[in-house]
């Protein structure tokens, strides 16, 4: 069985120690909590914290590994859904006219390009008819039932949006999973 939780636990400690700043991206912390295998505590936590992502633009991007339109692309190790890369979006962007989900689930995937494990956040794109030609994938590395909601990929992650129709899924790198 995976050691996902112990890894996450360690990373969490690292982050707390390093004082890294919190993300302003669009997942609610309720979800971020869930992501880390946690328990949802009930009640809305809507505030987001400031985040300096200046350095994000400076890092040299690793050469693309594999084909992000196929299920075997490394980021998709816990993705259950249609690839947005084959639905008019990209691996990090929803197609035109879709809405990004407010909440998301995570996986820990190994990037063969730099031999690192990454925390990947899967967002659904919402509110549109699925494209019948989209590539559907099902990978469940580290996946858990709904009691670890942030790791659960059977559910419609458009659930917190006003428009809940499932369209496709993107895979966002959150950071290295040490």
């Amino acid at each position, binding site marked *: *069985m*995976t*050691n*996902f*939780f*112990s890894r996450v636990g360690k990373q969490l400690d690292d982050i707390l120690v390093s004082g890294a700043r919190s993300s302003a991206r669009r997942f609610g912390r*309720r*979800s971020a909590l*869930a992501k880390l*295998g*946690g*328990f*949802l*505590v*009930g*009640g809305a936590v809507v505030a987001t914290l400031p985040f300096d992502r200046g350095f994000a633009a400076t890092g040299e991007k690793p050469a693309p590994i594999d084909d992000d339109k196929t299920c075997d692309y490394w980021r998709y*190790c*816990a993705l259950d859904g249609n690839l947005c890369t084959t639905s008019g979006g990209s691996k990090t962007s929803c197609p035109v006219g879709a809405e990004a989900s407010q*909440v998301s689930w995570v996986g820990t995937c190994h990037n063969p390009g730099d031999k690192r494990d990454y925390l990947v956040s899967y967002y659904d794109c*919402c*509110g*549109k*008819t*699925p494209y019948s030609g989209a590539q559907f994938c*099902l*990978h*469940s*590395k*580290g*996946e*858990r*039932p*709904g*009691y*670890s*909601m*942030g790791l659960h990929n*059977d*559910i*419609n*992650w*458009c*659930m*917190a949006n*006003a*428009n*809940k*129709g*499932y*369209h496709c899924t993107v895979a966002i790198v959150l950071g290295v999973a040490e």
Partner: protein
Amino acid sequence: MSGKWAAAVLSLAVLAPCAVRAQTPPPIPAEEISVEKALKPGPNVFVTTGSWGGAGAIYVFSADDLAYKGDYSTGMQPQFALSPGADTGVVASAFPKRIMYGPVEAIIQKFDVSTLKTQQEATILPKFAQVSPQQGQIQVSSDGSRALVQNATPATSVTVVDLKSGKVTAEVPIPGCWQINLAPDGAHFSSLCGDGSILTVRLGADGKAAGQARSKPIFDVEKDPLFAQSQRVDGDLMFVSYGGVFYRISDKGDTAQLVDTYAFAKAIPGEWTPGGYAIMGYSAPYGIMFVAMHPGARDGGHKDGSEEIWAVDLAHKTVLYRSAAKGLTQIAVSQGKVPLIFGVASHGGGLFRFEVDPTAKFAAKLTHQIALRDAAAVTVR
């Protein structure tokens, strides 16, 4: 115009068999359209088929030969429960205003199985969990008076519906917990929680939460999580872990108690593990748990389809027989003298029927199979 066409209208209403009856063989007489009044008799098996883009359905097949009998229409992502007598179905599903967007109307529908007619429609909370059809998302008390439905926003809660009045009586938050395991009397339910504990919620006669208690951690969510499915075994709840360990839980008291564990797959070479969504089916008359199993345990393999169905004797803690059964992701077991196993291959799209021989170590033999697109969950009594 009107006179001419009025005459034509009359004349056209007289389409009828004409007078060639003198010839041999006689022509086919005029027929009349009809509507089948009730399903053909005999035991049924139910398949829930979901959709992310439109209507779902509860398909009804003959449990004898998988002949298709009829369906009950649902909204999106239906979750289904069957009455103990198998004569009433209860289904929760979602109807968004513009199908793919707009406000969601979530409803519970109760229907008569033999006529597939709606008996009751009740509005539930729109936060109803839109998840692939699976066990424990809706549960009905054995007297049919109370239904419970899983919600997720992603914060989890349970909607309690009084089926007599059709009214929602409570939304019970179950933070960090998931899946409804309702006691037959409908008075309390248990849910698995993300810290490895089990939450027990008691419900009053008024359908409101009357108290709740969380057990000590019972399972290890990190190392060997439980599948979100249970079977009722002699009044206890039986779960199974990703790694192939049965967890027998007593849910009778205020707090759930671990009764026993049994690592049934451990001694068998090949790293066999359960896989799929509803991977256990229990034959109460024989005390045999059937489990969908596949070899080569790997992280992320817990939804892989089966290679075999194992018959496990719970009283003697023995794997009695391993029957070939390819690709199943959900199974359900009938409670008759000859247990029948029905399996769905949700990844491939098929429905399968196996007959079990109690005199041959509960070996299961495939007797029927059909292709079935979008088959997602299977239910039988």
